[in-house]
């Protein structure tokens, strides 16, 4: 019974963390601008993250060490440092965006300017990291994040022609008012949002925090095979909702508040309240994950004690990094930088750095020294390798596309 509860809770927590401000904004923006012509990217992206998250979770479960921890000793300190710098920087941008997202979600209820709420949001995030035990943290925000299922209900309530939708999604093309370049740029952005590196760091470190052992391999798979697809369904629901409600009205998404419009339209006040809870939970959960990831990455590269499973005074440098990261992200957010723009940058740059994150996972998951007999099977390796090639292509194309499209304008 306890195992069943663990599995259920693990799955529930997976959802909250898999739809963050990047997914909220990217899927709504894309739906409003491209209809369903980029839906296939979400599908490709979720398969990618399922395959690699399973690997990362398996590495952590079998070797008892998170993937990032092993990068330096397996691939060398230079590669590890490149990985650390890129990951930390992008993670920091994401953290700033998520904290702002929390503040915005709160402001939409309290009618206070979100800037005033940023310090409060940041403090709450830090406080939860500082005090709430890891499992409680996951359970609470995972459960709250389930509120986002309202975006699926939104689509169902609108009652679209499903055949028509499937046909559109299955025959993607570049809409007339867009160029192949903007199409590619948004495809990359969606991909970056679906496969954000911090999800893997966090998942991998989380497995160690929760002290998973070999007997938890099924739990690992359950988490991954149910949580991520559910996240994808929610992402697609956001896209469809935006395509049905925003696109016909020529509304483009440049504010987080607009993400809630389809739900307001379809489900009124109850829908609005629910989606705001969902947005709060998703951004707060992601802020926790990126805040912790800031500490995980630095501490694991340098060999410091790390983790919430230790008393804070047993891992002081780890907590110091987390605290400073949150503090600087707060200042950055307070500078008035547009949270949606920061979000877009973070997911696009994530896309550019994806090979750095995923290449080590593929290598380490095949290493018998760490994995014993639990190395990758042939199929997993085949898929993993294909994805890695795709990721490299994306990484190379990202910056040029960013310049050509002027940031997707």
């Amino acid at each position, binding site marked *: 019974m306890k195992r069943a509860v663990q599995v259920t809770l693990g799955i529930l927590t997976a959802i909250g963390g898999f739809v963050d401000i990047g997914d909220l904004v990217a899927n709504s923006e894309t739906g409003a601008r491209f209809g369903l012509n980029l839906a296939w990217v979400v599908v490709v992206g979720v398969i990618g993250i399922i395959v690699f998250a399973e690997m990362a979770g398996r590495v952590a479960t079998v*070797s008892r*060490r998170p993937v990032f*921890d092993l990068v*330096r*000793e397996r691939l*060398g*300190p*230079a590669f*590890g*440092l490149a990985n650390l710098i890129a990951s930390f920087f992008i993670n920091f941008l994401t953290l700033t965006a998520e904290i702002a997202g929390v503040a915005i979600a709160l402001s939409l209820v309290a009618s206070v300017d979100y800037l005033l709420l940023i310090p409060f949001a940041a403090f709450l995030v830090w406080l939860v990291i*500082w*005090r709430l*035990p*890891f499992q409680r943290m996951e359970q609470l925000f995972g459960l709250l994040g389930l509120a986002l299922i309202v975006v699926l209900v939104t689509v169902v309530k609108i009652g679209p022609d499903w055949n028509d939708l499937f046909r559109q999604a299955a025959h993607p093309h570049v809409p007339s008012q867009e160029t192949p370049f903007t199409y590619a740029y948004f495809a990359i952005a969606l991909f970056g949002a679906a496969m954000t590196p911090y999800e893997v760091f966090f998942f991998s470190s989380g497995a160690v925090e929760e002290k998973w052992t070999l007997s938890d391999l099924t739990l690992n798979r359950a988490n991954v095979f149910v949580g991520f697809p559910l996240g994808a369904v929610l992402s697609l629901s956001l896209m469809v909702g935006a395509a049905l409600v925003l696109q016909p009205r020529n509304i483009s998404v440049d504010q987080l508040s607009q993400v809630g419009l389809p739900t307001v339209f379809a489900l009124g006040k109850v829908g609005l309240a629910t989606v705001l809870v969902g947005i709060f939970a998703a951004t707060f959960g992601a802020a926790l994950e990126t805040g912790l990831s800031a500490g995980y990455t630095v501490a694991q590269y*340098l*060999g*410091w*004690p*790390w983790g*919430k*499973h*230790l*008393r*804070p*005074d*047993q*891992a*002081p*440098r780890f*907590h*110091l990094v987390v*605290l400073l990261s949150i503090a600087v992200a707060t200042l950055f957010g307070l500078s008035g930088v547009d949270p949606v723009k920061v979000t877009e940058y973070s997911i696009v740059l994530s896309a550019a750095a994806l090979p750095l994150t995923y290449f080590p996972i593929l290598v380490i998951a095949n290493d018998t*020294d*760490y994995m014993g007999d639990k190395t990758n099977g042939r199929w997993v390796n085949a898929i993993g390798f294909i994805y890695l090639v795709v990721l490299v292509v994306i990484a190379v194309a990202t910056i040029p596309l960013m310049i050509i499209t002027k940031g997707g304008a």
Partner: protein
Amino acid sequence: MAERQYYLGLDLLDRQLVADDGSLVGKVDDLELERCDGGDELCVTALLSGPGVLAQRMGRRYGGWVQQAQRALGRAGGDPTRIPLARVVSIGSHIELAPGSDELAGPAMDHWVNEHVIGHIPGSRHAPE
């Protein structure tokens, strides 16, 4: 320790150091090599771990400065970044050390951070579960 051949780059460098109580105390950032007993071979005499060591090994200039600063600020006796080979208990997926590792750079820095920052925040001694 039983006789075994180790590949320095693979088995020693960048490995996690673990103290006798199981706590993490850094990674092997570099190795100290000396000529063995006046011969031509080089022997590992110590593991090096701490701020600046890795930077210096990877070729950055400031690594040297950090190390000098560390030594200036640190204890008078003994180099906190140097772990004599005799203190190594076992070499495996991580490297276990004999007791007495609180003189090491890692724990020393943790102690400093506790004293000056983390220790002042309420709840720092609160057990996680």
